[in-house]
Structures are given as structure tokens and as C-alpha cells.
């Protein structure tokens, strides 16, 4: 109808999203009948708000920014609108297959990836040169640990490695789970028994804990992605293993003091067959309670289109284009010049959500377990590991308590 439709978008306050907010003029030009309202929130608050709203069918938002974890679960509940009709020129087949798989439920796409990521090693080439070290393309954990300890000089506020420690299923648990995967550990056996009491877990967690104690920054137990990013940009970290999207921030000379001396490598492994890299996408979805479904879809089609990537490239440069969502981007010769492009794609392609670790598991998800209880489990367990990192308990204690918590939760949820 003639009235302007309002689309309320709940989104997270990270750089790509905020950039998108700045580019809405382009959308408005193309769709003068649609008004966009932005609700930008910090990640934890966003998740809480969005979950609350969708679980109660509150209908406050027309577009949700959600992750790979929520999409299949919510889709299974019928809470999301299928996105298989975003228009002819949308070219859904161009979406990187791993992403598309992760954001689909029973073969139908329910959330369109805005950007996708895996994780990798980012390191300071200048420091490595200075110390006479060389980072292999495919490092092992052993090598990483050695480098980290060598590079650490706490008096000079130089820390060998920065890793996530802040409690949260999307914070430290994401990282620790990938470490555990690469050490051959798993969350559950095929009967949904928690496996945190396994020797693999102990090995992985002990390794992580010791490494952070020796070579991590102070306060690592409260450092999440953002804190580590700030540290790395300030030049305080020798290495940082985290999301591939960080690459564009650390190489951006406006924000980063070390922009011209960052190198990249694949996430490490232990030689047991799995690398410690995850797969994640921030995606846009439409809740079924929305009263502006069509307008919302038009917005999503715009925001996740190839054109949008070009738009960003033209205003902000190729290195600031949201990565990891479309195959065509990586085929673009201009984008190929971006230093981290290839490493990002390779990391993404290495990830296999169906087979996250060495052994078989009954669940999907690499750095998470795609069941509704995961948020609770992940956060509770994350707190135990955070406490451990803060020196309040040993890895054994942390694992024992996490094991107990997880079993309690699973029992209540009726898995056993």
C-alpha cells in the first residue's frame, strides 16, 4: 500500500553492522516505501532481547541478527520465515556452501548470511622477525605455545598470545571447544553423555590454562573478542587466534597501530585430524511474528546481496567488505589482493559442522552444540573455565564442575 512500511532491525553493535547502518541511504533510495529502524545492542543484550521476543512471539522486530547456532533451532520451531524467495537476482547459490548449510533447516534457507567467519591465527610479523621466529602456514599447538612463551615480555606489556577468556557460550566456550576438538575431545558421546571428564578435555584445557598463565595478558579471564581486538590493535599481543573477520580490523591503519605487520596462519592442530577453527555466520532472519515480512525480506535481500558488497567496496575499500558469505567475492580479483582473503576462505572451507571433532558426535556445530540447552550449558561451563583462568580453580576442578552442570542440565532436558 501507499503507506511506508517500517522494518525494525535488531542488530549487534559490531563494525560491519554499524557500517551497514551508515549505508542505508542506498536502500532508502531503492525502496522509498520502507523505513528502517535500528536497534543496535551489545551482543549479549541482543541475544537476550531477541530470544525473549521470539520465544514469546512478541513481534517487536522484523529482522533479527542471529547466528548459525540459533537458526536451525528456531526454524525447527517454526519461528522463522523461510528465505527461499529473495528474488531472481539474489543468487542464493552463490552463498558459500558451508554457510548455506549451517543456516538452513531441512534444506531451506532460514537466515541469510551477512558475513561469515572461521578462526585463524593472526600474528605480528615484526615481532616474529625480531625474535627470529617463523610462523608456518599450518602451525601446531606445540609451536604456538613455544612462540607465545618466547614473545612474552610482561614488563614491556608484551604478551605472547591473546585468547578469549570471558565467560559465555559465544565467547570463551567457542574458543575452548575448538581447542578441545583439535585435541580430540567432544562434548557428548552418541548417547548424549557429557564427556568433560575425558582425558582429552583435561589435556586441552590444561594446555589452554598453562599457555594463558605464561603468555597471556592480565585479566584474560574477562577478555572477549572485543577486548582482545583492542589489545592486538594496540600492539600488546604477539599472536591472536580468533575470528577471521578480525583480520580486516587489525589491518585497518585507522584503528590499528600494527596494521602493516600482521600475518595470518591456519588455526593450529595437534595432528589428530582436526584444526581448531570454527564456523560462524551472523545472519539476518525474519521472525514469523513480523508484520512486515515482505519489506523485511527486501531489506535482507539488499543487505546480503552482491551489490551490497560492491557498495561497501566502493565507499570503504575492499578490505572492509563483509567477508565469508559469498563465493563470488573470493573470485573477485580485486578482493584477492586483500591479504587475508585466501586464508579466510581456506579456514571456512576446512570447517565441517557435521563432524566437528575426531570422534563421532550426535550433534551439529563446531564451537557450539546446536541444541536449545546449549546457551545455558555453554554459559555455565564457560564461567567455570573463566574462573579457572582467573586462578580460582584448577582445570580438574573446572572440568568436574562443568561435567556436573552439563549432566544436570541434560537430564532435566530429557536427553537421558
Amino acid at each position, binding site marked *: 500500500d501507499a503507506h511506508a512500511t517500517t522494518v525494525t532491525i535488531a542488530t549487534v553493535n559490531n563494525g560491519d553492522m554499524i557500517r551497514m547502518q551508515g549505508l542505508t541511504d542506498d536502500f532508502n533510495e531503492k525502496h522509498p516505501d520502507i523505513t528502517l529502524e535500528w536497534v543496535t545492542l551489545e551482543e*549479549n543484550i541482543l541475544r*537476550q532481547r531477541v*530470544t*525473549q521476543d521470539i*520465544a*514469546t512471539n512478541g513481534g517487536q522486530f522484523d529482522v533479527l541478527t542471529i547466528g548459525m547456532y540459533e537458526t536451525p*533451532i528456531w526454524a525447527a*520451531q517454526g519461528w522463522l520465515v523461510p528465505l527461499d524467495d529473495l528474488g531472481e537476482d539474489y543468487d542464493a547459490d552463490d552463498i558459500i556452501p558451508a554457510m548455506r548449510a549451517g543456516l538452513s533447516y531441512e534444506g531451506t534457507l532460514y537466515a541469510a548470511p551477512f558475513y561469515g567467519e572461521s578462526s585463524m591465527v593472526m600474528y605480528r610479523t615484526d615481532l616474529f622477525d625480531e625474535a627470529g621466529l617463523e610462523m608456518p602456514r599450518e602451525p601446531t599447538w606445540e609451536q604456538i605455545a613455544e612462540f607465545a612463551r618466547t614473545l612474552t615480555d*610482561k614488563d614491556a*606489556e608484551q604478551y605472547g598470545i591473546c585468547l578469549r577468556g*570471558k*565467560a*559465555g557460550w559465544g565467547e570463551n566456550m567457542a574458543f575452548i571447544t575448538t581447542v578441545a576438538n583439535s585435541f580430540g575431545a567432544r562434548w557428548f558421546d552418541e548417547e548424549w553423555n557429557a564427556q568433560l571428564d575425558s582425558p582429552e578435555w583435561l589435556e586441552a584445557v590444561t594446555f589452554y590454562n598453562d599457555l594463558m598463565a605464561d603468555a597471556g*595478558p*592480565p*585479566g*584474560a*579471564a*574477562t577478555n572477549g573478542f572485543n577486548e582482545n581486538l*583492542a*589489545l592486538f590493535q*594496540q600492539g*600488546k599481543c604477539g599472536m591472536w587466534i580468533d575470528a577471521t573477520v578480525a583480520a580486516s580490523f587489525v589491518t585497518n591503519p585507522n584503528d590499528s597501530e600494527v596494521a602493516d605487520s600482521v600475518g595470518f596462519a591456519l588455526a593450529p592442530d595437534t595432528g589428530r585430524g582436526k584444526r581448531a577453527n570454527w564456523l560462524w555466520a551472523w545472519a539476518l532472519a525474519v521472525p514469523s511474528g513480523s508484520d512486515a515480512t515482505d519489506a523485511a525480506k527486501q531489506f535482507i535481500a539488499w543487505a546480503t546481496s552482491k551489490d551490497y558488497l560492491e557498495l561497501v567496496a566502493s565507499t570503504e575499500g575492499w578490505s572492509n567488505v563483509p567477508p565469508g558469505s559469498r563465493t563470488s567475492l573470493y573470485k573477485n580479483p580485486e578482493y584477492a589482493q586483500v591479504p587475508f582473503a585466501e586464508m579466510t576462505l581456506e579456514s571456512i572451507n576446512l570447517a565441517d559442522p557435521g563432524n566437528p571433532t575426531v570422534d563421532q558426535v550426535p550433534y551439529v556445530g563446531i564451537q557450539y552444540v546446536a541444541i*536449545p*540447552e546449549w*546457551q*545455558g550449558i555453554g*554459559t*555455565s561451563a*564457560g*564461567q567455570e573455565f*573463566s*574462573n579457572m*583462568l*582467573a*586462578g*580460582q580453580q584448577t582445570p580438574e576442578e573446572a572440568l568436574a*564442575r562443568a561435567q*556436573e*552442570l552439563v549432566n*544436570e*542440565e541434560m537430564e*532435566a*532436558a530429557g536427553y537421558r
Partner: protein
Amino acid sequence: MATKASKSAARLMMAPAVTLLLGWMLVPLTMTLYFSFADYRPLRATFEPWIGFDNYVRFTSSSSFWDAVTTTLVMVGSILAITVVLGILLALLLDKPIFGQGIVRILIISPFFVMPTVSALVWKNMMMDPVNGVFSHVSRFLGATPHDFLTQTPLFSIILIVSWQWLPFATLILLTAIQSLDGEQLEAAEMDGAPPLKRFWHIILPHLARAITIVILIQTIFLLAIFAEIFVTTQGSFGTRTLTYLVFQRVLESQNVGLGSAGGIIAVILANIIALFLMRAVGKNLDA
């Protein structure tokens, strides 16, 4: 005043406030009570209206419950102790002849106006950050290694933040109370041979008893509900998970509404037990 007409008018006048609050209390509380006996997990599309006391048993038998109760008591108790003790000292100081008293008062009251989220953010990032925080700058300046407040002394840090916010409140109430003390009483005590410390102990402190109970009552009401400070700083880790926060995690993070509701009901009961004691004390002090 006590004519029939005024009595019935009084009933009429109280009606809106009482009805509104009764509704505000009863409707959500009844629903929460109902949920607390249900297995209600929206993310699983589970809704089973009656599962008995399972939620209560699970909530209270989980090890986090008692930890949370202890944390809550320690946190609230410490903040009360800090704000009351420092509040008294500050009030005594402000009662002295001071140049620029107005400005001093404005500076001291300011933290009270800062919204909890902002105050937590400011303390976490600007003050306590182990790398960029002011404290770390200071300790580096003094040649010490920066203390990592939020991980090494998390509970203390939150207590510090919240105390900072509430100290002005305590100070101002206590200051007004001190200023209301009849000067002749102090003079009488002086004539009776009481030195300053004894005057404080025997005259000023008892005079403050009423104000102190008010401070404790009001602060307890607000402190039991502390949320933003924890959410922003530690997210409940490192032993800073209060009962309120635990309920939050159950309801919103785990989306286990039944379990969380049971926790909510338990929190209401515990809060009211504490309140009952306080109200008794205040009631007595208000009559006196």
C-alpha cells in the same frame, strides 16, 4: 479528623494506589507461581502445566543455588557495611566547617545520578581495566604490577562499584541526620566531661540509629536487585552470581522459564524474609 465522612473518603483515596499495586503484585506473581510448577521451555516448545515441585527441587539442589545465596548475602552485606560506615565518616566530615561546602556536596552526590549500566561500564573500562584503566596506570606509575580487579578480586570489585554508587545516598541521609542533632545535647555531653570520641559513640551514633535503619532498608531493596553491574562486568562468573543473576540466567539465557520462575519465587520469599526483619526495625524506629 475522624468523622465517618473522612474515613470513607480515605478509603476511596487509597483505592487507586492499593488496587494498582495489588494488581502489579498479584498478576505477575500468580503467573510466575503458575510457571514455577510447569515445565515451560519455549525453545523446545515444551509446556507441561504441572510437574509438581520439580523445578523447586532442581533449583535449590543445584550447587549454584547456595553459592548464589551466599554471594548475595556477602555482596549486600558488604555494600551496606561500607556505605554506612564510610557514610557516617563522610557525613561527620561534611558537617565540619569547610570552604566550598556546596561544591564538595555536589561532587560527592554525583555518583548517585549515574545510571548503573554506565557506572559499571565506566568502572570496568576506565578504572579497572588491567591495561588501560586508571588504576593500572597508577600502579605502573608506582612501579607495581597492575591488579586485575575483575578477575582477581571480582566480588570486591563489584562491591566497590556499587558502594561508589550508593555512598552518596548514605552520606546525605546521615549528614541531614547529624545536622538535626540538637546542639545543646552535644554541649551537655561536653559539660558532662565526654571527649569527642565518646560524644560520637554515646550521643551522635545513637541519634543516627533511625537514619541508619532507613539507609539500610532502602538500600537493601535496591541492592537485592543489582543486575546491570554484574551483567556488564563479570556476567556472573568468578563467584559473583547473585540469586537475581542466577534467576536471570535460568529464565533468559537458558530459556527455562519454569525453573527460573521457581527461582524467582524463592528469591521473593528470601527477599521478604529479609524485608520483614528490616521493616520491623524501621517500623519501630519510625514510631519512636
